[in-house]
């Protein structure tokens, strides 16, 4: 009998996982004992980290995508369709085109989506760089923005890439200085809790840097309403902040499949080491959709994908899986247009901060270029 392995989502996590499985299980796939399918609701994979550079004219959305058929190993079947239902008792998924597919092992790798509607006025009054259309529209807006108050407000937490909002203000500061506009543009960065970032060490490192760059910091700032007419942000704490250009990190949510299938309220509840779903047998979750106590980052999706691929490969071979995820997370942090640093940590660790440098910035740009080799499983 063929072991059917179905991966829902062909983003960073899904492709790395499927390619790793193809590698681990090649003989079983060739003999028909195992079969790997990736279902993705589009032909392309989008590399989201590139969106950070689009507002500054350093990258385009068009360069940030590749056909999934180029990224997946030939031993993996790609199905371009949308999964609309999941029955974890019957062990099957339903597809938009009407078919049902049975699975023996299911991996949820559906990522996170943006939900600006959750905050009244945000969709009308705010910009963002977290999706393809948003980041292009922000580029056009920024290109013409010559004076006033630029506010970067972190509204949705958890959100993808916890470093990106800080990166954005550091880059905006540098970019506006280079263009001779900084004197006429005030920049404010707001964060929901009592410090500038979720991780204490990142907050301690960033706070004096924000002050050096003349970027205002507002903490305990949870926007609950945006008034697009008056251009005001109103917070749960009863404060108001005027803006001329609002760049917000919108609330995030997960595919409704998760709650409908009873896998979790929003994100999939998983064992943080094995990434097995708490509420269903033979279901795993990786990447942004999995509820683990670390960042929603591509590096996390990548390391988790390796662990789950190893676990599923062991199960298919009739062995006891031993591979576990320790929370390893690596994030580059741009601190301007030509300098960056990076942090690396595991579950419960506080990262050590390093001084930013040009080589780390080049390493981040280099990684962005070579990412497609990572997705293919070559790096």
């Amino acid at each position: 009998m063929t072991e059917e392995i179905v991966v829902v989502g062909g983003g960073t996590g899904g492709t790395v996982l499927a390619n790793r499985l193809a590698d681990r299980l090649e003989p079983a796939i060739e003999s028909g004992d195992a079969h790997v399918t990736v279902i993705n609701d589009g032909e392309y994979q989008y590399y989201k980290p590139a969106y950070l550079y689009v507002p500054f004219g350093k990258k385009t959305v068009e360069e940030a995508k590749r056909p999934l058929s180029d990224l997946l190993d030939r031993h993996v079947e790609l199905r371009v369709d949308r999964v609309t239902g999941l029955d974890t008792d019957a062990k099957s998924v339903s597809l938009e085109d009407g078919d049902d597919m049975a699975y023996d092992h299911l991996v949820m790798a559906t990522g996170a989506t943006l939900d600006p509607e959750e905050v009244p006025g945000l969709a009308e009054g705010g910009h963002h760089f977290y999706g393809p259309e948003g980041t292009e529209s922000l580029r056009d807006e920024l290109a013409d923005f010559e004076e006033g108050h630029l506010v970067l407000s972190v509204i949705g937490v958890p959100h993808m890439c916890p470093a990106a909002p800080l990166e954005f203000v550091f880059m905006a500061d540098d970019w506006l200085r280079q263009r001779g506009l900084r004197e006429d543009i005030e920049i404010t960065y707001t964060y929901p809790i009592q410090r500038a970032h979720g991780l204490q060490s990142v907050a301690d490192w960033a706070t004096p840097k924000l002050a050096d760059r003349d970027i205002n910091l507002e903490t305990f700032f949870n926007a609950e309403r945006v008034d697009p007419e008056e251009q005001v942000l109103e917070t749960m704490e009863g404060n108001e902040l005027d803006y001329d250009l609002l760049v917000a990190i919108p609330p995030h949510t997960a595919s409704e499949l998760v709650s409908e299938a009873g896998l979790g309220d929003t994100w999939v509840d998983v064992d943080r080491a094995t990434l097995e779903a708490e509420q269903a047998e033979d279901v795993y979750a990786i990447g942004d959709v999995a509820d683990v106590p670390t960042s929603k980052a591509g590096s996390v999706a990548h390391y988790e994908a390796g662990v789950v691929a190893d676990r599923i490969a062991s199960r298919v071979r009739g062995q006891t899986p031993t591979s576990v995820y320790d929370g390893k997370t690596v994030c580059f942090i741009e601190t301007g247009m030509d300098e960056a640093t990076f942090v690396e940590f595991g579950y419960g660790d506080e990262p050590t901060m390093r001084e930013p440098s040009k080589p780390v910035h080049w390493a981040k740009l280099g990684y962005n270029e070579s990412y497609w080799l990572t997705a293919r499983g070559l790096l």
Partner: protein
Amino acid sequence: MSDTPTPDVEIDSRGATCPGPLMDLIGKVKEVEAGTTIELLTSDEGSKNDVPEWLDEAGHELLTIEAVDDHWAIYVETT
């Protein structure tokens, strides 16, 4: 423990590290009506300071904090 408040809503943030529990609480406070009693379970010791500080800032009431085995139960009433 007769004076332990009876919660309308429970948030289990045990196992989540900072700022997980506080953010989970903020998210829940956004959803519920005024006058709701929320019980936040947290295994992160930092929550004992972070949560009251935010409640103070946002004007919600801290009812009590109880230590239970390996975690804390923080009771909050929204205003």
